[in-house]
């Protein structure tokens, strides 16, 4: 237990905001069946005399992934009543630290494990195994009447910080630019700020104060649909057909890439990242079966939550009975 202090990444990652209220409720909803199962167990085994033990999978980490992980757990548990899965957030760093302490079975991560975390794990006799479970991509959208089809990340950064205020400055019509964003408590807001506005570097650039903060994805799509001046962004899974997606490039010469499941999966679309689950050692038994399901049938839930599903299903091997 004293190892905890030596792990260099115990602080929660400054990644996405904690949706604590909803999180606690969700965690509670998840834990309730576990508690009930736990209570019901002695009576069951007494009557049946069978040595069936309720198996609990502890799943903790990234706040980006928490809603998806909850959806997975909620979909998996009814079909496997003997298994209960408890999902909590707290950030990628917290999840990995817990994995190294042995307090969780699966750590959710929105970034890869750091070298120092891996070293600490090895020192503790744990060899974390990485699984890409979904991808997160953000599409930049404009009105269909807007002639702009492509932008560089630098241009989008300048647009959102208020340096560029007219579409003419990026080769469009002589119209003012209306900036649309999700509310500041949305995980997408922070990710867009860090990866696009700040271009992944350390800086104190912020959204322009003129940015319209829309309370929902629907707010963004409604405004983009009817306002030719508007530019917005949202998770790829939330973009509707009546908006026009912009092809993005890392630099002015580079290829301009439209977001799609294929371009996100091969990494050519610049505003996307894989989401991971880490397991201590090669997964076996219940955890292996669960991961198998997540990477297979579970992928159907991914797009419903605004993420990008994996292109190909890579089975972990033969499922255990």
């Amino acid at each position, binding site marked *: 237990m004293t190892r905890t202090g030596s792990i260099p990444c115990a602080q929660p990652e400054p990644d996405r905001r904690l949706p604590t*209220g909803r999180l606690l409720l969700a965690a509670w909803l998840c834990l309730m069946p576990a508690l009930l199962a736990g209570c019901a167990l002695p009576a069951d085994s007494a009557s049946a005399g069978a040595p069936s033990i309720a198996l609990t999978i502890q799943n903790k980490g990234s706040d980006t992934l928490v809603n998806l992980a909850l959806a997975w757990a909620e979909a998996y548990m009814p079909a496997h009543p003997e298994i209960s899965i408890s999902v909590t957030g707290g950030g990628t760093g917290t999840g990995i630290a817990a994995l190294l302490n042995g307090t969780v079975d699966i750590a959710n991560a929105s970034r890869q494990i750091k070298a120092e975390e891996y070293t600490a794990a090895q020192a503790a006799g744990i060899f974390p195994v990485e699984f890409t479970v979904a991808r997160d991509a953000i599409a930049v959208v404009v009105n269909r009447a807007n002639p702009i089809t492509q932008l560089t990340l630098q241009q989008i950064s300048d647009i959102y910080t208020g340096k560029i205020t007219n579409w003419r400055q990026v080769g469009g019509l002589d119209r003012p630019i209306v900036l649309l964003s999700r509310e500041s*408590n949305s995980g997408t807001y922070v990710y867009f700020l860090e990866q696009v506005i700040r271009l992944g570097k350390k800086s104190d650039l912020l959204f322009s104060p003129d940015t319209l*903060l829309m309370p929902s994805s629907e707010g963004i799509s409604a405004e983009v649909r*009817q306002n030719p001046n508007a530019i917005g962004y949202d998770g790829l899974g939330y973009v509707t057909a009546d908006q026009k997606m912009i092809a993005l490039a890392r630099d002015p010469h580079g290829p301009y890439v439209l977001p799609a499941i294929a371009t996100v999966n091969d990494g050519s679309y610049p505003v996307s990242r894989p989401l991971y689950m880490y397991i201590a050692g090669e997964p076996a038994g219940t955890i292996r079966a669960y991961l198998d399901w997540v990477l297979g049938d579970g992928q159907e839930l991914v797009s419903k939550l605004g993420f990008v599903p994996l292109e190909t299903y890579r089975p972990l091997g033969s499922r255990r009975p």
Partner: protein
Amino acid sequence: MSKLATIRWREFAIESLVRVAGVSTIAFVALIFLFLLREGAPAFFRIPLDNLFGVRWYPTFDLYGALPLILGSALVTITAILIALPLGVATAVFVREAAPPWAREILKPMIEVLAGIPSVVLGFFGMTLVAPFIRSALGAPTGLTAFTGALILAYMALPTIISVAEDALDAVPKSYRDAGLAMGATQWQTIWRVVVPAARSGILTAVMLGMGRAIGETMAVMMVTGNAARMPLSLDSLFRPVRTMTATIAAEMGEVARGSTHYHVLFAIGIVLFVITFAINLSAASAIFQKRRRGGLR
């Protein structure tokens, strides 16, 4: 044990129940205020005041400048009242003074219906119809502006203003009108120079109550004002997006970590909002009380 004793006991029980019901209203207001104070006060200690009353609202990055929000609320509310006041008073004058009885019979229930439209419906109406119209008609970059919010709020404050102003006109003695007409004034002159001035404090109350209604409105405002926390100081601010206090609380409270600085700041904004609404309602109430002492709501 006589019948009389039973009746007395009943009387006592009912009286106490009514008293508890009355006093509990005050107790609830007091408790709510205490709760607001407890949750909001830490904000004033945790954050330097120049941050709290700064001009940059980026709660994710610990910038809690509430000034754009306060000014945003003020801009939207005052504009709404400026739109609603002439319309509301004119409607009240028409209903009370000029309308034939059959028109009055139709108008009064219609005004009640107006009050019953859910704000989210008005917000949706504003977002899908009014905002595109404002953008195309006024050439603003976006239709989600302070003005759009003010229009919707004016619409929502109208029923309050109309019915209170109508009551005020109703309380003006008939002798005033008779005297005006007997002096040879036309009906318009009587209304404009005699009846409306006689009812002005009642009309002021109507405005105050309408304002209280407008400043606390959340849903419709959040849907149509664009929620950009910019300082509304330039001349064109009315036709640019703003972020109000209510919309900020509604949008951010759902996902904030309980006990965090951001959480306390949202409650602090709630305190500001409460104090403003309280002051507005108090001044409206005091106007009513003053008039009552002089006989009748006018």
